[in-house]
């Protein structure tokens, strides 16, 4: 227990927690975004996929608990590290020019906060059906839930904006997680990360395609 406290008490230890939980999230969003594409094969395909997931019972709940714990640890570590880093420079520069920091790396904190809000609303919207922007929700008809919701322009817009934040978060997070947990091999160009870009583009495109397809009337 003492060594665990020593591990998490260090900023490097917190970064390792962020890296591991982040990679769990990366794996989840890849599978989730690919699963969503079943909507293009019609109501039967995605509804039976949803039914299959729910039929796994305890396994589904085990996965959900892993994901919820990962999100909670990720957020707690992020908040603590942000506070420490802000405190580390009490007097700001009059002028500071970023040389290589990307839009993605610079929006990790605010983009992450937006994603947390999105995750909560998204679960209340499509998983529990607590929030019904379209006024109707059927736990067995995922296809209808998607189509009726995304026909409302501001719901579609919220999802599209959140997915931009997700894409940026993934672009920086996917490769930096691997570095934080110390497994990335040395590279002559450590800031050069094509696999991360590919993951970010794939997940962003797959997630964004669904609301856009509903708005465009391709999925109806």
């Amino acid at each position: 227990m003492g060594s665990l406290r020593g591990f998490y008490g260090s900023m490097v230890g917190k970064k390792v927690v962020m890296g591991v939980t982040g990679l769990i999230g990366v794996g989840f969003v890849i599978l989730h975004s690919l699963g969503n594409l079943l909507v293009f094969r019609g109501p039967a395909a995605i509804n039976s996929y949803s039914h299959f997931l729910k039929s796994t019972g305890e396994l589904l709940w085990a996965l959900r608990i892993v994901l919820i714990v990962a999100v909670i640890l990720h957020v707690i570590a992020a908040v603590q590290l942000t506070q420490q880093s802000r405190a580390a420079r009490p007097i700001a520069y009059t002028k500071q020019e970023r040389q290589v920091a990307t839009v993605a790396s610079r929006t990790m904190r605010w983009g992450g906060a937006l994603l947390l809000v999105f995750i909560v609303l998204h679960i209340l919207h499509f998983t529990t059906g607590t929030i019904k922007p379209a006024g109707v929700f059927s736990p067995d008809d995922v296809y209808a839930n998607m189509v009726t919701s995304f026909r409302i322009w501001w719901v579609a817009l919220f999802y599209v904006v959140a997915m931009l934040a997700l894409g940026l978060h993934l672009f920086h997070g996917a490769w930096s997680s691997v570095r934080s947990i110390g497994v990335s091999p040395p590279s002559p160009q450590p800031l050069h990360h094509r696999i991360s870009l590919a993951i970010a583009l794939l997940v962003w495109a797959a997630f964004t395609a669904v609301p856009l397809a509903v708005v465009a009337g391709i999925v109806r």
Partner: protein
Amino acid sequence: MNLTLHVWRQAGPKAPGKMVVYQATDISPDMSFLEMLDVVNERLTERGEVPIAFDHDCREGICGMCSLMINGVAHGPMKGTATCQLHMRSFKDGDTVYIEPWRARAFPVIKDLTVDRSALDRIIQAGGFITAPTGGAQDANTILVPKESVESAMDAAACIGCGACVAACPNASASLFTAAKVTHLGLLPQGQPERYRRALEMVDQMDLENFGSCTLHGECQEACPKEISMDTITRMNRDFIRGRLIGTRA
């Protein structure tokens, strides 16, 4: 050439500071940036004003004493050099130049542009050394070290401890500095006995000194006058994890 300088002036550690505007006139493009400041200081002295305090020593890029945030960039616009090797030809006549001290809670301002960087010394004291007796030159030659390890260790050992990585980091993190030392000693056979303990103790000291955490923006390696790679940070984290979770015995 003529320049307008905006310089941070602060009389002492507790005194309030502010940016003050100076005109640097008749500056030769062949001067180094520090020589330009010498000229400005001479004229200030002639006028009976207090000259601008700034750190400098070897003026040939090897001691790590000079610093300065120049137009928002640590060590100025020249890549892979310290401020002493930045020349005025990197600027244009009529330019406005902002000159500020390194900013970090761990680097308190002593006066004007000089800051106290002893936090970095304390990180070295925590573990940046080896205790194995290494013998004389011929003894060193009897210990075989793979060429790749020698090269990578030497690249990391090039760190001059100037603190530009901290200054440039949006989080004021000293990860690149600490990681360079962990990498330099951890790659060589003489550094093995204390390899994991070194990583733990240097990382713990880095935390105690109130530096920020690494978010891998990459600003540190861009600012580093010795162009040390942030690959070293991955290696430091790896040694830290191994030391904390498995133990510090090599």
